[in-house]
């Protein structure tokens, strides 16, 4: 069986992942809604996952995909903790607007 | 028994003074400092008998740091100065009521320990550690037991600390740099380090910064007057009597032998700076209204002269610097003590509020007078010996140096006598002035005895230090 990358090219995946990663960065910077920022971070992580899978294929090696599992676990854990913090913030502020969190500065 | 024993006594004394409690702290401090003096004297005796009293041990393997306390005649002399002045300084504090005195005396002894360590270390790094260590106690002594309101005191003391700390950090860099060349920090190794002219220049400069600030040489002196004024007198005595000698000693011991080329090349600059300090300090002293500030500026003038002498790189200059260092150490402690006695009784440092004291206490006046005379280098006092050699060395370098620096004997007499006149003479002061107590008189007499004895017969000291100095001068002039 032929390597799929023969047709598409690893570079395309790199570009795609990079773009997706940048979109994630953009999202974190652009939005003030914390939950959407979380989502953007998920996009970033997914971009990397995609890259890992692409490289896994590139090397015809399973470890890359295994690593994606860990990455997913991490993503899940992060989201869990993140949402817990979010809830705590919401309880105090009644909103999750990140721009309200500017008390610590200077 | 070797030289580390003295350090241990002082350190242990610091701990002991702290733990015996406020009531006995001063006595404990006195006992331990006297014991240190006795030990030093004994060691000196042993050393002159040909025994080695050094202590050398490797401390850290990599980088190679050697816990080396070398006893040669120079370090022993300085050690003697330190341990002799410490009990005197402690004795001088006896009449004061000091809060938290156990900490106070512990800090004084700790400082003596650090300064003693600076004088005897042969390893540049260990030397540096002691050098810095000595800053901390004086910082707290000046800060916590000083005079004047908190804000100005804080400003002065913090400035002093940061300033001197800043200077010495450059010295540390220089040491590390030298270490790269030599492989250890021993001064003998560093003397032999092969350095290009440029390296020597920068190393010299780094050392100079550290020492110029500590001595202080103008224009690095701005911390001095304020700190002297704000510190408690014990602190001022420690600073002016011993601590600034650390820097001059270090010039002779470290800076010049390690990097003599820039010193030769730019000799006029450094000697000139020292001499400028003489004039500058003297003229400023004339305008002071606070007695301790006046003495501070006089000290600036004197140490400027000493530094200038050391930078002439001649045997006379360096020996003069060394002798004058000892003499100045004693005389300045005495003068500050006198100032302390007056300002304690009159609760002011303002000269204008003094006067008419001699009528009330001729004894004190005489002793003060002798100190004033010693400070203006009256012959037959130790200071004359030092000043003569210093000025002579400058005359050898360039006659105008001697002429300009020599104005110190005129200007010095001018401000000191002016001060003495305003402080002591005149119609009886309305405020009563209690006669000196036995303890106070003892301090003065001890100092005066030293000054006059060595003024008449300096041979023991000169003979003791000269071979070592000659060796150093040979090293310093190795490129010519």
């Amino acid at each position, binding site marked *: 069986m032929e390597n799929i990358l023969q047709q598409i090219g690893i570079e395309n995946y790199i570009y795609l992942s990079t773009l997706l990663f940048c979109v994630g960065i953009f999202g974190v910077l652009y939005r003030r809604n914390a939950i959407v920022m979380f989502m953007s971070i998920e996009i970033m992580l997914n971009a990397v996952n995609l890259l890992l899978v692409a490289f896994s294929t590139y090397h015809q090696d399973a470890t890359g995909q295994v690593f994606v599992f860990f990455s997913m676990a991490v993503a899940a854990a992060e989201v869990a903790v993140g949402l817990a913090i979010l809830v705590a913030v919401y309880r105090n502020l009644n909103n999750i607007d990140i721009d309200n969190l500017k008390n610590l500065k*200077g | 028994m070797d030289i580390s024993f003295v350090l241990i006594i002082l350190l242990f004394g610091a701990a002991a003074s702290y733990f015996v409690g406020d009531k006995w702290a001063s006595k404990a401090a006195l006992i331990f400092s006297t014991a240190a003096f006795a030990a030093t004297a004994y060691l000196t005796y042993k050393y002159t008998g040909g025994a080695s009293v050094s202590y050398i041990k490797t401390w850290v393997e990599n980088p190679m740091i050697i816990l080396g306390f070398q006893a040669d005649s120079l370090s022993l002399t300085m050690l003697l100065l330190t341990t002799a002045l410490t009990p005197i300084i402690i004795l001088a504090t006896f009449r004061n009521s000091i809060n938290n005195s156990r900490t106070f005396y512990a800090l004084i002894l700790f400082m003596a320990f650090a300064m003693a360590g600076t004088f005897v270390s042969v390893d540049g790094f260990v030397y540096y550690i002691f050098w810095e260590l000595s800053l901390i106690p004086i910082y707290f002594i000046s800060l916590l037991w000083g005079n004047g309101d908190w804000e100005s005191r804080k400003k002065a003391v913090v400035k002093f600390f940061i300033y001197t700390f800043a200077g010495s950090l450059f010295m540390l860099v220089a040491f590390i740099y030298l270490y790269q060349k030599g492989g250890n920090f021993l001064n003998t190794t560093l003397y032999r380090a092969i350095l290009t002219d440029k390296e020597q220049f920068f190393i010299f400069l780094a050392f100079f910064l550290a020492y110029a600030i500590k001595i202080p040489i103008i224009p690095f002196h701005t911390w001095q007057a304020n700190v002297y004024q704000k510190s408690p007198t014990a602190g001022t005595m420690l600073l002016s009597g011993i601590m600034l000698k650390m820097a001059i000693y270090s010039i002779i011991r470290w800076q010049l032998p390690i990097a003599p080329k820039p010193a030769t090349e730019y000799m006029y600059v450094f000697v000139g700076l020292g001499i400028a300090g003489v004039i500058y300090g003297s003229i*400023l002293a004339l*305008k002071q209204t606070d007695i301790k500030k006046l003495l501070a500026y006089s000290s600036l003038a004197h140490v400027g002269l000493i530094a200038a002498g050391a930078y002439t790189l001649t045997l006379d200059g360096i*020996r003069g610097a060394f002798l004058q260092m000892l003499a100045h150490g004693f005389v300045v402690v005495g003068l500050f003590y006198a100032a302390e006695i007056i300002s304690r009784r009159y609760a002011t440092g303002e000269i204008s509020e003094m006067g008419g004291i001699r009528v009330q206490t001729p004894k004190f006046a005489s002793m003060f007078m002798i100190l004033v005379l010693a400070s203006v280098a009256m012959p037959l006092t130790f200071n004359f*010996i030092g000043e003569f050699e210093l000025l002579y060395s400058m005359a050898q370098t360039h006659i105008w140096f001697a002429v300009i620096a020599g104005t110190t004997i005129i200007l010095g007499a001018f401000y000191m*006598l002016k001060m003495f006149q305003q402080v002591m003479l005149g119609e009886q002061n309305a405020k009563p002035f209690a006669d000196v107590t036995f303890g106070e008189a003892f301090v003065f007499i001890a100092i005066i005895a030293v000054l006059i004895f060595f003024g*008449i017969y300096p041979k023991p000291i000169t003979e003791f230090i000269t071979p070592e100095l000659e060796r150093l001068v040979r090293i310093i002039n190795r490129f010519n």
Partner: protein
Amino acid sequence: MDTNLALLLLFAPFAGFLLNVFFGKKLGKGASGTLGTLAVATSFVVTLTFFLQVINTGKPVMVDLFEWLTLANFNVNFGFQLDQLSLLWLMFVTGIGTLIHVYSISYMHDDENMHKFFAYLNLFIFFMITLVIGSNLLIMFIGWEGVGLCSYLLIGFWYKNQDYNDAAKKAFIMNRIGDLGFLIGIFIIGYLFHSLDYTTIATALSSGAEVDATWLSIAALCLFIGACGKSAQLPLYTWLPDAMAGPTPVSALIHAATMVTAGIFMVTRMNFLFNLTPDVQTVIAVVGAITSLIAAAIGLVQNDIKKVLAYSTVSQLGLMFLALGLGAYEIAVFHVITHAFFKACLFLGSGSVIHALHGEQDMRNMGGLKGVMKITYITFLISTLAISGLPPFSGFFSKDEILMTAFHQNKVLWVIGSLASIMTAFYMFRLLYLTFYKDFRGTEEQKHHLHESPGLITFPLIVLAILALVGGVISLPGNSWLNHYLAPVLAKPAHHHELDGTAYMLMGIAVVGALIGIGVAYSKYIKQSAVPAQDSEITGFAKVLYNKFYVDEIYTAIIVNPIYAIGSFFRDVTEAAFSGFIFGLGKVANMLGSEGKTLQTGSIGFYLFAFVLGICSIVVYIFLAK
């Protein structure tokens, strides 16, 4: 034996000093005075033994005690050289010293600090002896500074009066200016000869060693500056008149007879050096001549009895320097000795007068004392005649020798010297007339208490007056014992003036000049009964003279005030600038910190933005920038 005796010579006064300092108060006034006097008398006796010994053997006594100062190229020993010159000096130092001590016992009897006075006097003698007998320049310098110190202490003896203290301080500082010169001279000599011993230097010079002439001249000049300070020559003479603030015995001892002659001693001591530097000799002669003239001029109009004597001292010292400058060392020494006799007598006499008047020093408030104070008057008269240069009083011989030498070498100097002598005769007789003749002009109260001084005061006066009368015999023209005696210590043979016609003519001129001065004084103060005007009424050139050519004011304006001004400048400007610079660094750091603080906005968006920018710049730098 010699060593012990020399030490006794030196330390007898020092012991007196110590005893008086520590036990003087307990001993009581009489005992402390006696103690002090005995101490000096002991020195005198010892001096006498040495003197006779040296006259007999002709060899100086050398004492080496120990090595004092170690320098790279040479050592300075603590050693003494008791030769003809120093012993001669010691003779009158200890001799007159003893007399003045005796005098002081009575004079200072009312002072509560009498023991201190004697302590200081003894200390002074100690230092003076050190100065004289030292075997090298540095030992001389010890004494040099030491006598300066004692002068300071004694001028400011009544320390409650700040004016006196000012005078004392001024004396000390002026001396120190000279001392610096002296020190520099010592440095150069040390550098040139690698020794400070007189004998070594003399040997080196006489053996014709290669010595840089310029440096030698500079050294000589520097030494002379030192002498100017100590011996009150232009431009450093202003302290001496002020020094009259001290008790009168002090003025007699220190500021007339002994200390102020130290400069002459030093130049004579170093004559082998000065001989080789003719330029400097010229300078010395000129300075001496001008000083004598100016001081005499100022002396013409002074009204304070001691000030007149002080200016007269300056003037006479000028004459001595004139002699030194002309290379006539033995003549200068001769004049020193005669001057010591008559000037000490004059001062003590004036002290006696002041004593009688309870501290009054202004001559305008004196007069008519001739009748009451017979002994004082007579001794004073003798001394006045001596200083005016009338034969056969001692001053005639010494002054005449000086003028004669000047005449032979430089007519201008001779004229100046003669003028000064004439003025001297005038103001001395002015002094005499105003004080002793006519009617008493003081208060009734004073008049009531007028009395002759007690024996302890008059005895020294009598002795000194006799010496002033006959002192000239030690160096009579044509047959000078002194020249003979001093020959071993002088590098060049003494001047010998034939007693030819010129000599007699010059003597005649001098006597006539003196008589003119006396005559003018007589006509003005006896015939016309003039009394000097009050301070405010003095006008014209007299005012300039009365105010001493405003020298003090000029010095204040061009030296002291600028120093203070510079001090203010340093204190207010440069100190602030240096300090401000350091604090400024701290301020800059703080300012930057505040700026940095504003960066910390608290906004996550901004933080992330910075994060991203950081990444971009790093990536660009590493991967894209080439």
